[in-house]
Structures are given as C-alpha cells and as structure tokens.
C-alpha cells in the first residue's frame, strides 16, 4: 500500500513528469535515494504504469479533432468486439472509450483539415461495422489537460 510519502511524490511527479529525480525529491521533501527507491517500487508494483511522451498532433499538421459518439446495433452479439477491432485499424483514431450511459462508445479522431476529415469519415468511419447511430462533436479548445489525480 501507499503511504503519505508515496502520495506526496506522486502528487509532485504528476504535475511535472519530465522533472529529474533530484528535483522531484526536493519538491517532495525526501532524499534523492528515497525518492528513487519509492519510484522503483511503485513502478515495480504497477501503480506507475508508464511515463509517456505526449504528442501535440497540431505540430504534426493535424488541425482537426472530432469526438464521435457511437451507438451500436445491439441485435448482433459480437457488435462491440467487431466494431472495436475495426476501429483499431484506423490510424487517425487516437482514443476509444466504451461507456455505460446514453451512448455506447466514443472515438477521438484527428485529421489534417476539414477536407481530410470528411474523407476519413466517409471512407474509414462510416464503413465501421454495426453502427446504429453516430454523432460528431467538433473539438474547439482544451481548457484543462493535465489529467492529474487528486491524491
């Protein structure tokens, strides 16, 4: 289990995942050796799954992001699995969530511009299997993105 020191380290680490262990240790008020040992233990136990680079797709020319909310045909028992398998084959799909709620799942799709999005939507998205209903929400701006857990 985690103790207060682990939580303190994680709190600071979440706010800046790129900082060196020495800085993190200082911020959390522990020695660098303690900090490194705690981090190793939390990685080893799987509490820290990874420290990942985050891509800015705009810097690579992907200006458009659309959230597609999908309802599936429930009459087909394999609808979820088959839809998910096909959606994973579309490179521009960057996130897939399944839900308990008004819609069954959501795809986050990126495109270079509206023309590219329209082409993707027609060729790659509408051809995905078992779609009963689909609605698009256009992404305008990110106001908060840190995904920090309130530990």
């Amino acid at each position: 289990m985690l103790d207060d020191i682990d939580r303190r380290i994680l709190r600071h680490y979440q706010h800046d995942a790129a900082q060196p262990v020495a800085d993190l240790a200082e911020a959390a008020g522990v020695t660098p050796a303690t900090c490194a040992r705690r981090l190793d233990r939390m990685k080893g136990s799987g509490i820290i799954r990874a420290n990942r680079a985050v891509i800015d797709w705009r810097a690579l020319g992907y200006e458009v992001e659309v959230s597609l909310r999908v309802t599936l045909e429930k009459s087909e028992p394999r609808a979820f699995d088959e839809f998910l398998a096909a959606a994973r084959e579309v490179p521009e799909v960057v996130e897939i969530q399944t839900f308990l709620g008004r819609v069954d799942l959501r795809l986050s799709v990126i495109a270079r511009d509206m023309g590219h999005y329209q082409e993707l939507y027609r060729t790659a998205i509408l051809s995905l299997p078992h779609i009963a209903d689909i609605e698009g929400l256009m992404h305008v701006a990110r106001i908060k993105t840190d995904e920090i857990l309130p530990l």
Partner: protein
Amino acid sequence: MIELDTIDRRLLRELVHDATQPASTLGRKLGLSQPATWRRIRRLYDSGVIKGQRLDLDHDRLGFGVTVFLGVKLATKGRVSIDDFERAVSAIPEVQTVEHILGLYDYRLRVVARDISDFERVLRRRIMMLPGVGDVEANVILSEERRPGPIG
C-alpha cells in the same frame, strides 16, 4: 510544421511508450549513436511535437474506481459566464480535463471519483453548482484505449 522521417517516427513511438528511456537505450533499438539519438529527441521536444510527459497511473489501485465523461451545456451564454465557468470548472480537483466542443454540448469534462457515490457528491456539490451550468449528460467509462495515432 516539421517533417519526420522513419527513424523520428519510431523514436516518437518509443517515447510515447516510455519517455524515461535513456538515449543510449533508444539508440541501440534504432541503430543510432547516442549523440545522434539525443539530437533527434531534443528536436522532437524543441519543435513542440512532444508537448510534455504524462504519468500513466493505475487509477483503480490508487482508489479511483470511476471515471465519467460529462457533457455540459451552458444555460446562459455570454462572454463573462463562459470565462467564469471555465475558471471554476478547471479548479475542481476531480475534473481532469475540460474541453470546449461544438455540437450537442458546450464542454466535455473527464471526472474521476472513488466510486459512484463519490461521483454523485462531485456532481451535486461541485459540477451542478458551477456558474451557468445547464443540462448535464453522464457516460461512465467502462474501458479506455489510447491508440498510437498516425505516426506510421
């Protein structure tokens, strides 16, 4: 916009998988010298292609068993209330992300909670109290995948 070659793309994939790998390890994987790898890594960060690093934590084991996407519609529009809403919603610790969207809703929030009753608390005491908040639609996440995206 910067152009990436095949090696940059492989390097980017590696860094999305694990950004803490040393340049020497990455260089061995890609058949590059350590200094050449380091220069390519720096270029990815300096050009803004990599905008930062994010910890991927096991939410369940940290006691956050529930993640909900909330679609929020503003009841009253106008510049002042939008600014107020954005500032207030961003200050809620359980709200992980706030996105302004066009369509059925005005904002999408990602909200974490310990369990469903904790989520209800956040919804009633925090979200529903926000200035200008109107209709709210909740979808509880059952599973989530982050895909590598079009980096070849």
